[in-house]
């Protein structure tokens, strides 16, 4: 009987874990809205279920995304997750074969070498070899994980997250599980000779010191490590293992956060493994801001101690989302927290008047930021003139803001007032097209305005159309151009190619390392309400210094905000796309008025 007591710690831990998991999963699914629940159930009946299963296999077990980012880190995760999974599966098959039964007690595969001392069952040699091999596979992952904790730079990671007590307990027991399993199996191999290449050779190291009591205590220690890990799991970051599976199913069902917290927030928060990949992508670390990155925000939401200072100290550039191996929508999640935090003080803007709109074929909305860079407005006017369009410049005199800055500050309800006012005006103009020259406005017009059949066009797209229709003729110069992707346009709206296509017509565009998805934020971002101007300057200089290594003649951008930020750095010539286009149009050959100056007489005494 005492023999069987080694199962106890493992079983207690497992039952505790299952109770917590079932409780949480039920709570989360119940917390979804009725429609979302229907979506989830529906998705289980369609092809989406298979897609989700495939994703669970690729991301949950193989860690495909981490592999792409960093093969060593990917191998570490894969050997631990996939290796452990195979160890469990192969273990079960082995026991089924040995017992010649489909139904075997759950604990038996875990402690098989302890209970099954013989090796005369079918294929026993093959199985013990396989199990040893898989154990070695997992152990290689564990040793890499230990190495990573102390020498993270070897894994290409600059930063790793800080651990809490719960995490430490779980981490230590996880690290101990497999070495203890190796020790216990080796001891058994030493006594009963039921091991293969790994366990036998390690077992032979024990020599004659092997005994039943040592064997028992080693297996007990193994069981305790398992038990501790299971008990610590729900309150540690390892909760991401079961939650991620649920997240994949929920996400594949098409469920999204709808501007307010619900249990989908919890599912995402608990799915964060705190791997710290977002820390390396975050630019704010260069400015010494180290406590408001996505991983910490997720942790703080989970621990319910999120402060405004952290929540609003983020550029909302979206770089952290790019490499998140779990695919958490960090930006949505953060904006939702901002909405919750500012719920009490949304403005009503009762002063907004319905200013009559002007009839036109096309509306141009410059936006607040473009008004601070008059060069862009001038160029846009010139382009409209060349195209011969009937344009109404909507906010030339005055107009409310587009609403996006308010949204970034979390005040959606207030923003909707501005949106309603602007919508009325735009629709009232009877235009078919709305041209915007600011990516911040572009995003909100595209995503949150209901403009019926009015097409929202970004100025880079519009200019490209004009070039293709040969309305604008360009002289291609030999100037070297580096293009800076604005966050809101690139990662925000996934528009990377149109501005580049325009720039290729005007000069020689250089491709650089940190572009497109990995492009810098200029540092000017309206998303961050807490960052100081000095810190913004550090971010800007960091980006400009990198651009300068390519020795461009022009730094091109498509955002007035980025232009405004970069022009404060004196070392580089910054131009908006529209300005570059206007500069490269052939100048009309007007006969120059030559001022005829009277030749100045040179007096001899001037030289004296």
């Amino acid at each position, binding site marked *: 009987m005492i023999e069987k007591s080694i199962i106890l710690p493992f079983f207690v831990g497992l039952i505790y874990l299952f109770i917590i998991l079932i409780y949480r999963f039920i709570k989360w699914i119940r917390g979804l809205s009725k429609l979302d629940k229907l979506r989830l159930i529906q998705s289980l009946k369609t092809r989406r279920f298979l897609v989700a299963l495939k994703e669970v296999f690729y991301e949950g077990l193989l860690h495909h995304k981490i592999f792409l980012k960093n093969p060593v880190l990917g191998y570490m995760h894969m050997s631990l997750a996939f290796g452990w999974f195979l160890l469990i599966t192969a273990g079960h098959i082995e026991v089924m074969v040995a017992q010649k039964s489909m139904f075997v007690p759950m604990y038996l595969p875990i402690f098989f070498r302890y209970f099954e001392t013989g090796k005369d069952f079918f294929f026993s040699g093959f199985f013990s070899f396989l199990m040893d091999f898989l154990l070695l596979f997992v152990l290689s992952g564990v040793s890499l994980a230990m190495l990573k904790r102390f020498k993270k730079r070897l894994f290409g990671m600059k930063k790793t997250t800080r651990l809490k007590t719960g995490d430490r307990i779980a981490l230590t027991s996880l690290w101990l599980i497999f070495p203890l399993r190796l020790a216990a199996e080796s001891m058994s191999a030493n006594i009963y000779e039921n091991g293969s290449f790994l366990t036998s050779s390690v077992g032979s190291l024990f020599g004659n010191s092997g005994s039943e009591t040592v064997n028992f205590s080693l297996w007990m220690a193994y069981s305790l490590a398992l038990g501790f890990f299971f008990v610590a799991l729900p309150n540690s970051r390892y909760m991401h293992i079961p939650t991620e599976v649920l997240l994949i199913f929920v996400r594949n069902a098409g469920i999204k956060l709808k501007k307010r917290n619900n249990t989908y927030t919890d599912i995402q928060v608990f799915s964060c493994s705190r791997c710290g990949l977002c820390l390396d992508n975050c630019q704010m670390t260069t400015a010494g801001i180290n406590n408001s990155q996505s991983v910490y925000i997720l942790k703080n939401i989970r621990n319910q101690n999120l402060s405004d200072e952290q929540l609003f100290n983020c550029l909302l550039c979206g770089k952290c989302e790019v490499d998140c191996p779990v695919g958490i929508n960090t930006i949505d999640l953060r904006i939702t927290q901002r909405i919750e935090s500012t719920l009490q003080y949304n403005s009503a803007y009762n002063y907004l008047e319905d200013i009559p709109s002007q009839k036109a074929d096309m509306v141009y909305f410059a936006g607040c930021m473009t008004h601070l860079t008059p060069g862009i407005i001038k160029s846009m006017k010139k382009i409209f003139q060349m195209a011969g369009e009937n344009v109404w410049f909507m906010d030339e005199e005055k107009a409310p803001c587009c609403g996006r*800055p308010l949204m970034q500050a979390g005040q959606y309800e207030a923003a909707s007032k501005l949106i309603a006012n602007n919508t009325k005006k735009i629709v009232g103009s009877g235009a078919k097209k709305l041209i915007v020259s600011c990516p911040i406005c572009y995003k909100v017009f595209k995503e949150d305005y209901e403009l019926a059949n009015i097409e929202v066009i970004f100025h880079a797209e519009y200019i490209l159309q004009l070039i293709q229709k040969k309305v604008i003729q360009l002289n291609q110069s030999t100037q070297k151009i580096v293009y800076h992707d604005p966050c809101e346009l690139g990662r925000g709206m996934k528009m990377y190619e149109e501005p580049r296509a325009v720039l290729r017509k005007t000069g020689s565009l250089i491709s650089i390392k940190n572009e497109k998805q990995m492009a810098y934020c200029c540092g000017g971002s309206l998303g961050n309400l807490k960052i100081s101007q000095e810190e913004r300057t550090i971010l800007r200089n960091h980006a400009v210094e990198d651009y300068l290594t390519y020795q461009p003649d022009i730094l091109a951008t498509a955002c007035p905000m980025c232009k405004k930020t970069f022009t404060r750095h004196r070392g580089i010539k910054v131009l908006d796309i529209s300005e570059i286009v206007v500069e490269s149009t052939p100048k009309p050959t007007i006969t120059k008025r030559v001022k005829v100056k009277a030749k100045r007489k040179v007096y001899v005494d001037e030289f004296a």
Partner: protein
Amino acid sequence: MNDFSYLKPASRQINFDNFDERLLMYVQQYEPSFLTCISCGGCTATCSAGNLTNFNVRKIGLWLRRGETEKLSEEIQKCMFCGKCTLVCPRDINIRNVILLIKKRISMLKTENEIQ
């Protein structure tokens, strides 16, 4: 201006015994750069909301220093958060954050007053 009210301006006396510094202290704590404001009015000149109504960012700063919480709670609603003021500020003050802090503190004060 039509009623010549500017000829008989309202009293501008501040009773320091009744000075409510809670709002000012809160802003100073979280956005100390506000202290460097020279009231140049650049923010007001560029303001998008100021273009549509009589909203005045500079006045917000003055009222904040005078502890005029009541007046502020009305006026601050007009800001559209577009961020132009922050961009043009010659003293590099994070004005958007100042506005956010004022709004936040006022809503906190309201709930505090309700409890009392």
